[in-house]
């Protein structure tokens, strides 16, 4: 099975969820984590991650701050804000519902 591109509109949720799970992370770290979480099934163009990050930051869900990484390199670390935490919960629930509904359509119909 080949790698899939990230679906439209899902990257933001993946980023938020990653930050919720791992705490403050820099851009490269978030990208690697998303790939790892997908079990290598998603191919993420790292360049598209930054516009998503700036959008989330503008909306106030995450906040960026310069710091030093484990590699002893300067990096911009992103962390979830309180609004971000609420948004993760909200979107996760919405996605859960959406996938559950879709799953019903895709399952073979039960015979009476």
């Amino acid at each position, binding site marked *: 099975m080949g790698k899939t591109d990230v679906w439209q509109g899902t990257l933001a949720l993946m980023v938020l969820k990653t930050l919720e799970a791992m705490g403050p992370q820099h851009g490269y770290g978030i990208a690697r984590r998303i790939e790892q979480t997908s079990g290598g099934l998603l191919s993420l163009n790292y360049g598209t991650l930054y516009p998503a990050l700036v959008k989330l930051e*503008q909306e106030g869900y995450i906040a960026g701050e310069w710091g030093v*990484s484990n590699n002893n390199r*300067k990096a911009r670390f992103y962390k979830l804000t309180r609004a971000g935490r609420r948004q993760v919960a909200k979107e996760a629930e919405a996605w859960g519902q959406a996938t559950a509904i879709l799953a019903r359509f895709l399952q073979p119909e039960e015979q009476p």
Partner: protein
Amino acid sequence: MRRLRAGLVRLTNVFRRDRLDRELAAEMESHLQHHIDDNLRAGMSPEEARRHALRALGGIEQAKEQYRHRRGLPLLEAFLADVRFACRMLWKQPAFMLSAVSMLTVGLALTAATYTLFNGLFVRGWAVPDSDQVFRVEASRRVQPAAGTISDGLSLGAYRHIRAHAATSEYVGYWFDNMRIRADRTAEPTYTQTAVVSDNFVSALRIPLQQGATPPTTGDASPAVVISHGIWQRVFGGDSQVVGRVAWVNDVAVTIAGVMAAGFEGLGGRQIEVMVPLAVVRQLSRRPGALERLDDERQCCVWVAGRLRDGRTQQQARAELETLTAQYRHSVRQPELSVRLSGTTQAETIRDLESVVTVLALASAGIMLVFLLTCTNVGNLFLARSLSRRGEIAVRLSLGATRTRIVQQLVVEGLVLASIAGVAAFLATMAVPPLFRLIDDEEAIAALFRADWRVAAFTSVVVILTCLIVSLAPALHTSRIAWRGAGAGVPPATGRLRHGILAAQIALATVLVLSATLLTRGIERALATPADFALQTTTAAILQSPPGRPWDAAAARQTRAALAAAARTSEVPTGLAGLSPIGESGLSVGRTRVREPQSEALFEAQVVPVAEAAPQILGLRLAAGRWPSTDPAALEAVVNRTLAENVWGDGNALGKQLTIGFANDRIYTVVGVAGDAHLTAFDHVAPVVHIAPLSLPVLVARTARDVDAQLTRLVASVDPELIVTVVPLSQPFEQTLEQARAGAAVAAGLGAIAVALAIVGVFSVFAYLVEERRQEIGVRLALGASRRHVGLAILHATRSAVGGGLLVGLGLAVAAGITLRGFLFGLSPVDPVSYAIAAMMLVVSAVVAMAVPVRRALRVAPVIALRAE
């Protein structure tokens, strides 16, 4: 909410680009290094590690571009980049920028000034808080022969009745007067515009005070007044302890109770420098009329205004007012009183609104034409300029810029120019009121021209319109040519648009020049018409009672009788008349209304009191009957033919009866009919009624060497304390003439601007035309064509534009002339002399504008012209 927040962040990011770019570069570099570190750990060689990391990022520049797109507002950023580029381009061509900006400034400033006037007249109400809750109350009376009604104030009795019984609104009463104020007894007096106001005036209208309070209402204490910020500065030197201080108003000691706030200048164009409570006016006023008003409940007029109480509507106030008026009318048997609510804009207070509107409309039309002329001129400059840049534009198009992008860039250049001109025009508009104050201390006009936020908003809209008019068509045109002919060397086909602009310029200039010539000639003609009465040969002595002397009706009657007796026995024939104070126009003491005692129909009339030798000295002719008796108690009147025909149709007025003004119980008998004369204005005969002078008269005598001394002596023999001012009778007329002259000057000014703009416009069209055909001219001259021939060929190329423009312009000019008929004072709208003068001006201008560039081109040696390619 989140979106709004994101939008705001993006907006601020537009202005933090440099810092954010540096941070982005650092973040990208950090991302790459982390990835390279990982790759190295995975066993790649350094080169391979870097290559792999770059590939995964999708290219650094692409990634940055995506990021920037999301970070700020790309459209705004492109616009700002265009603005910066436009500024650079314009800076490189200072001559183009200066000429375009100066022309646009003229057009925009005229337009903005016109709107300022419109705003001051029709839009802006009184400068008090919540002015939409404030309204004026006017008595409206139907007056013949004018079809409409005239409006004025209410009698004091009516005002008191309404104020006492109204529940929906709080009513205030006021009138205007002039009083002298001084800071101490010995100081030079300052003459002020004074408002006599009811006790609740300040609190009900919420007039802003910067210190002090409303004057106390009781009349027995020392009178207290409120002064304006200007008087506080000028008369009291900005004294911070002014409240409570004693000053002198009309030589009576008063206490300063408060100072109005700096921004408050008055109500509806009437300046208020001092506010005197109605309760104390008896102690201060020296004007007999003002006191009669206080004594007679039915005397007119006190101005009335109201402010709606919380939660009440204008409809409720109107209904209540109608009821209260009906009650009052019934109780005093004043049948003609009907009141209406009106707004607080200046237009509502203008009696002759229709003619003001006509003049304003005509002036606006003229200014609109000048504005269009500036736009076509600048549009033409734009076209020439963008065509000269078609190489640059072609290169940008071939590099992948879209046509929209090019058009946007060119339009932004227009916007930059128009904005600079707009700011200059707004500043010029703001300079108008100080200018009026400087020239003639014309506070009322200055207030009318005050620029506010509405003027700023209007100017902004016009700036955007101007930008579109001057730059859109040339931009579309140029980008199309450059796009079609990019690199292919196709010559531009710009003839039609340029010829269109040329034709429009010529048409507009023709209309403006012809209208200005017609107006100027019409007014000159009216001014040159000799007066049909002894205007130039009469001298008037205007009398004032001495300061401090209280007004006394009986004493005034006695003085008047003594003056009449002295005039009768004087060596020099002397008459008594009633003239308006110096500075007001005409002979009349006031517009009033007359009617037959039993009739409801009111007729407009001007009262011109005359007695003793006055009719002979003034050169008034009598058509029938005799002049009225000198004794006002005889109640005799003489009407002029116009008034007689207005009231009695057949003009047979002898022996008929009429009442004048509001004194319904004083019934005058018509004892004579006078011939019509231009007594009150030089352009029309007003309906006039002559009666014996009622108040302190004006003495008139035939102008001679010693007449000043003789009149002064005569007055001194009656009452040595009276103040005498001797002036030629023509002086009060000067102001009317000045207004007409100002009208002619405005028309001539607009005409001159139009000619100048047309010369510049035609010049630039020809300069460009010649420049473009330089090579062709060179070839023709090299092949032996005569210079005259080549010159004619160039002119020939524009014949249809010039001819078409002239034809359209003439057609419009005839239409304009017919519209202007009312202002031509009998001059024909197709007056041949005016047409000849205008034609000459246009031809001379056209020759100047065309000849210079053509001659310049013809002087160029053929070889040089050919080498240029």
